[in-house]
């Protein structure tokens, strides 16, 4: 039954399943413990981050190995500004900064790499280095960033007409994260389906051919890196109040690697893959660490190995879904 439906109306079926998924996520706070709600809320922030990586890796064919640089810049921009500014608009300014600064950073990084013909593994190495440098910088300037002790991001509120959104409440934050995830997911799919996104998908397959058609592939990739950086920064800003405090971990290598794993597990080039990957890993990590104790990392490793061996394009990385999203 599902197969016939999928054959005839793959887009409708996909949207239906996505709708069910969103509905289930929306109901989580009503049946899950506050602990699981916060675990999944954090996973939603991470899934926005994963979407930003997939825009580069899965869609444009460029792997960033230091994507936490953007996430971390967003988190620190948000953390520092909410600490230093006061008044009703402080949180808004902090959010805008968390979008704009990593976005500009992405544009700058793209300018110095893509326009010089840097691609493939070289881009991965450069981004890796950038993340390492930023991680070190966050540690080395403690009076600015709080160093290893971190920076507290608690007790924040959003002034909205007719009240305020309390960012220290787990359930409120969860819903903010869910709404943002859905918006970013659909926004990203929309972006991939524009001629701009299509050109990047094409350039990801053959840069030479895309250039022969007139596309300035360096400019396109730089623009996408700016967008991707801004989304990653927003994810960082969302994560900051969830974690209550941020330290150099948000900008380093571990997070950069984790986001690659989320996308690889869920499926790359389908945008929703990173969301599913981040949710699965978050759920399994907290569930397994409770049930099998210290063996949880091992179990997770075996699971990843199985996916890489038997579904190299990830759980959802099918051609049918790629076509709906616009990446095939």
């Amino acid at each position: 039954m599902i197969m016939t439906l999928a054959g005839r109306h793959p887009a409708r079926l996909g949207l239906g399943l996505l709708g069910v998924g969103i509905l289930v996520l929306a109901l989580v706070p009503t049946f899950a413990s506050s602990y699981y709600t916060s675990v999944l809320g954090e996973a939603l922030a991470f899934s926005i981050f994963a979407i930003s990586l997939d825009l580069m890796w899965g869609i444009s064919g460029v792997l960033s190995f230091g994507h936490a640089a953007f996430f971390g810049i967003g988190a620190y921009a948000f953390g520092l500004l909410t600490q230093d500014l006061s008044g009703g608009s402080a949180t808004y300014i902090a959010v805008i900064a968390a979008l704009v600064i990593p976005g500009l950073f992405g544009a700058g990084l793209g300018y110095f790499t893509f326009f010089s013909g840097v691609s493939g593994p070289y881009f991965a190495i450069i981004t890796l280095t950038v993340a390492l440098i930023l991680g070190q910088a966050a540690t080395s300037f403690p009076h600015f960033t709080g160093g290893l002790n971190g920076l507290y991001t608690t007790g924040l509120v959003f002034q909205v007409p007719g009240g305020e959104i309390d960012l220290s409440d787990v359930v409120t934050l969860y819903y903010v994260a869910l709404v943002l995830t859905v918006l970013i997911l659909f926004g990203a799919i929309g972006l991939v389906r524009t001629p701009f996104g299509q050109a990047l998908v094409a350039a990801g397959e053959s840069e030479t051919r895309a250039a022969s058609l007139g596309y300035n592939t360096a400019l396109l990739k730089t623009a996408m890196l700016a967008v991707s950086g801004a989304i990653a920064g927003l994810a960082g800003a969302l994560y900051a109040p969830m974690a209550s405090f941020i330290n150099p971990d948000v900008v380093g290598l571990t997070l950069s690697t984790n986001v690659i794993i989320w996308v690889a597990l869920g499926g790359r080039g389908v945008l929703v893959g990173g969301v599913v990957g981040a949710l699965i890993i978050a759920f399994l990590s907290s569930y397994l660490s409770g049930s099998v104790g210290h063996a949880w990392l091992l179990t997770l490793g075996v699971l990843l190995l199985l996916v890489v061996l038997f579904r190299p394009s990830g759980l959802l990385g099918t051609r049918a879904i790629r076509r709906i999203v616009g990446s095939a």
Partner: protein
Amino acid sequence: MALNGVDLRVHAGELLAIIGPNGAGKSTLFNVITGHVRASSGRLQLRGREITGMARHRLARLGIGRKYQVPTVFDSLSVRRNLTVAAYGRSPLGRLVWSPPSVRERVEHLMEFLRLSIRAGDAAGTLSHGEKQWLEIGMVLANDPELVLLDEPTAGMTTQETRRTEALLKELAAGHTVVVIEHDIRFVREVAHRVVVLHRGRVLADGTIAEIERDETVRDVYLGRSP
């Protein structure tokens, strides 16, 4: 030296065929014109504008389009998306955020014209060799350059497929300036206004097909002596 002292002028609206034995420098000539290879010396001009050494995408934007010898389509993209990507190739970045219905209609028309409508949603990698060649010709049409360079458009095709390709190329020639590399002399006779013979990187002869076929040297090095 792959090319040596080649002085070639292509007139607007012309269909110029380049023939010559393997290794004569035909594809190299195209590679130089489209910026894939930089010539060690010499100049290129397009409508009086100096284009020597320009980046590939800028040459494409100025209106130089190319169909490669080996069909180069985006294998993982659907037929429809291949044509759409080609249609937007020369648009500025700001125009890439929205797809007006006019472009979508043009792509649908093109697919009908190419007889690829039923394969619209299929990955281009699954097309037959002939279909890929037609898709690539369609991509050139969608991209709408002023000067079209075609590298052996009928290579590896059955007689039937070649006929169909001829029809497509005539359509292409109607609104564009075309330079075509081709081995099939019957095909050249059928479509070309003017023929240039390349041999060992030099222009050996330049004229109408009748003149070329009468030329003694050309018969010696390329066409052969049979009737």
